[in-house]
């Protein structure tokens, strides 16, 4: 199991970076090429949701994204610092969560520390891309 972490400030321009990194990591782990768009979209939704929640509450704390290769599955966890009970889902949030649950075969929203984590998992069908040999 290998985990990479990415920390972004809660600003909209950083969401693109997060989804590009997630897409690249998923490809490297061997996630099917046909679902890479879905990984990018779902991760983008989760990060956008976190950014909006932080901005709505004037919280400048960073958002953390963990990308984990479990050999047979690829998991992305997006951590915000806003307790889920402090905000009620509006239409936009409901739409984002609907997209996430449709795009990721497994997804969950849970409390984590002071905030919330959105976890999304995709199966890994093929072998991971071979690492380039050094030297």
């Amino acid at each position, binding site marked *: 199991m290998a985990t990479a972490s990415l920390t972004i400030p809660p600003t909209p321009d950083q969401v693109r970076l997060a989804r590009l990194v997630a897409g690249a990591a998923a490809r490297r782990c061997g996630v099917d090429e046909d679902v890479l768009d879905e990984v990018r979209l779902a991760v*983008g939704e989760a990060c956008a949701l976190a950014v909006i929640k932080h901005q709505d509450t004037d919280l400048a704390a960073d958002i953390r994204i963990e990308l984990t290769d479990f050999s047979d599955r690829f998991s992305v966890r997006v951590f915000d610092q806003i307790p889920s009970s402090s905000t009620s889902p509006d239409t936009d949030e409901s*739409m984002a969560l609907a997209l996430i649950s449709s795009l990721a075969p497994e997804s969950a929203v849970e409390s984590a520390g002071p905030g919330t984590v959105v976890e999304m998992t995709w199966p890994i069908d093929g072998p991971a891309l071979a690492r380039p040999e050094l030297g």
Partner: protein
Amino acid sequence: MGPAVLSTSNEGKNVEITLVTRETDGYSVVEVSGEVDVYTAPQLDEQLSGLVEAGSYQLVVDLSAVEFLDSTGLGVLVKALKRVREHGGSLAVVTATDRISKVFRITGLDTAIGLHSSVDEAVAG
């Protein structure tokens, strides 16, 4: 002679979205290219809101050249749809790829917003 370009934004700048608005057959057609996400969606919102405030209630949003669309982009389209309907208008969307139309299908918005394969088809209704 082709339709005149009424307005453009972001041309020449290093941003992820470009918006071009033109008039055709009584419709305001907003051609969008690039990525529509939480960062760029406010620009689309501003463009569509400006059109409605200027009295354009028949809108076509052409997403043929859009590579990425998320729920914040959908939210902007829903907001514009509500506003034009208040004036008896309409909003249709043109999509060229399943990548984009899938986002409408998953959220069920394809039942509220007409999806078309070309601007001509959207204008024809």
